């Protein structure tokens, strides 16, 4: 099963790989959610949804169902 | 007399205003009719 942002835990970082254009609001892309950009999970809301992320420098929150649509490549090296 | 005329004018204005606010169907100048325009 492919890894998506939804599978990341708090504090984990990853690189965005791809996503279905239909499933993601254009606004998200415009805020920096593009293949190749870095994403970090800053907080997870108490009930697991929404997710507070840092995508390419933009601080924003999205719902779990949207996060499930964005495939990622986990970082093997943790940056300090 | 003057007082009565003025008072009734005010009443008419109030009724006119309410009718226009609630009963007159305003033409929608833009395409968006009900709510979700599908502008996604």
């Amino acid at each position, binding site marked *: 099963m492919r890894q998506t942002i939804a599978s990341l835990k708090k504090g984990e970082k990853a690189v965005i790989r791809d996503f279905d254009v239909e499933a993601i609001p254009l606004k*998200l*892309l415009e805020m920096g959610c593009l293949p190749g950009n870095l994403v970090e999970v800053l907080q997870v809301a*108490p*009930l697991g949804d929404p997710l507070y992320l840092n995508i390419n420098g933009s601080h*924003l*929150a999205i719902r779990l169902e949207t996060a499930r649509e964005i495939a990622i490549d986990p970082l093997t090296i943790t940056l300090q | 007399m*003057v*007082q*009565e005329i003025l*008072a009734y004018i005010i009443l008419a204005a109030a009724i006119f205003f309410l009718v226009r606010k609630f009963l007159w169907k305003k033409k929608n100048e833009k395409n968006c009719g009900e709510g979700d325009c599908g502008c996604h």
Partner: protein
Amino acid sequence: MTSTKNINVALIGNPNTGKTSVFNQLTGLNQQVGNYPGITVEKKIGFCKLPYNIKANILDLPGTYSLNASSIDENVVIEMLLNKNDKLYPDVVLVVADVENLKRNLLLFTQIKDLEIPTILVINMADRMGAKGISLDVPYLEAQLKTKIAVISSRKGTGIDELKKLIVAYQSLPTEPCLNASIIDPEYFNRLRKTFPNQLLYKLWLVITQDVNFAQLDRNEIRNSYTRSQIELKKIQQKETIKRYQFINEVLKDGQKINLATAKDFRIQLDRILTHKVWGYAIFFAILFVIFQSIFSWSAVPMDFIDSTFASLSTLAAQHLPAGVLTDLIAQGIIPGIGGIVIFIPQIAFLFLFISMLEESGYMSRVVFLMDKIMRRFGLSGKSVVPLISGTACAIPAIMATRNIENWKERLITILVTPFTTCSARLPVYAIIIALVIPEKRVLGILNLQGLTLMLLYLIGFGTAIVAAYLLNKILKINGKTYFVVEMPGYKLPMFKNVSLNVLEKTKAFVWGAGKIILAISIVLWFLASSGPGNAFHHADQIVAAQHLSEPLSATDFENAVASQKLENSYIGIMGKAIEPAIAPLGYDWKIGIALISSFAAREVFVGTLATIYSVGDTDNENTIKNKMQTEIHPDTGQKVFNFATGISLLLFYAFAMQCASTLAITKKETNSWKWPATQLVLMSGLAYLVALVTYQILK
């Protein structure tokens, strides 16, 4: 060289860039908020004096991340920028960017540049550059982005003069685009260019991708040959976005340097506490509690002041204006009508003061984040929190605040259930009825029974809103993709200027929105209450005199008795008697019936109407009204009219009934249809009737 025409300046930018601050800095108090025709978006225009005696009209456009509209708000922005003949078409555009989020902010900038309008890049929040370790090579950026840059801090007020000078020199701004976007799909764009050689390529593209009509080119002309499927268009948009970001990254690589070593970040620490599983919610509820306490205690004094002022005004008018119908209308209809509107300003202003500060500080986004999942169970959005809280002051600004909810179904449900929250207007009604039927006792030694009842009513309000939302969510079959995205801005200290202007704006919205309707209805109701058919009305004084032949009344008592007789036989009295059979099962008599009808102007009118009905001329003295009402005996049953059962029945009726014409009006405007306010009226009134009925029958 002086110019007689005003320059049109448009302000555009991402949300949370301080664009509003810039607008406020440029225009001060010279601003007005209106509406674009047919849409619910606000149109904010201000006026600014520039150097060399040049004047400018500044248009503050809604915050947006790009020209690809995802909501009606953003659609308006594009439309105006594409139509050269629009009278607001800008001579120069100011793109406001936040120095901490330059990368993202520049996306919009590059799109605006593609429209070939003179553009100035305003980099705001310069005061934070040091703390974040950011340094900019401005000349380099100006050359690469083909623009002029003003680095300012709207918070500190620096750079504004330089910005004004740049605006004045707008004609010397370069208008070429800074990147060539058409290379993302050369074949498609070349065809487009060949067919419409006179049109700006990017403009065409925008038209195709959204539903926009502009002056020279109608969508239909292009549609047939060039529209691709939505998915294909979206793919091209995605490519466009990627291309733009590539360009921006290139430019910023050399144009911006960030020294992470010197960067400080409070955000992380604050977020940890404020979005914490336990503390996050605890803090939020504590804040809510403080807000409500403050609003109640702070508004008491101004409200009393307003109350007595208007009462005096009314008396003054009656005394000094020549006697007649008009004077009566003014003294008894218009002045109290306006007073009834003004008296709510303190509560509304204070509530929005708090909400405004919470939003300005960035905290509200965290609340939305915390509440979203819970709210969704009820068909609402995390963003519904602000409207629901605002509803405790007044539903009108609350419903307007739903505009930022992306999902139409969530927004609609929020609009429909907000009126259930206990608004300020219900309070006077609750107050007097509680005083009449709830004993002044203490429960468990500390809790005041009357206070407890009030709190209970508040909870019922919220509870019903949530339950109604849940039901609506199940019943309504509306599809809408959930495109929830909320930006989590950095924490900032709220700026006084922004907060106060915001409060002013919201208060005005209430006063004009609700005020006009309340006043109009007050006038109509006054006429209905002060005229009537037949002798019973016209010869009231003779009738009363005849009734008290054996024991003549004092002058005041006589006046009051005549007033009461007149009211009973006025049009509204007749209406009250007519509905009496329908409301009797709820425990109400025709006098309460009259008060119920009058409440449609504004719920608080209930108290004033009761005062008149119970032949008390003087409404200042609450005790007198209370005493009169307490001792009132129903002629048929021989029991007290305001007994416990009736009291509770009335309380619940007011909790659930849709009696606010102004709310119906704004619901109609925001949903663009008659269906919803009509449904609201029928369902809520029906609910109120049933609950009141059952309650009375059980308790009596």
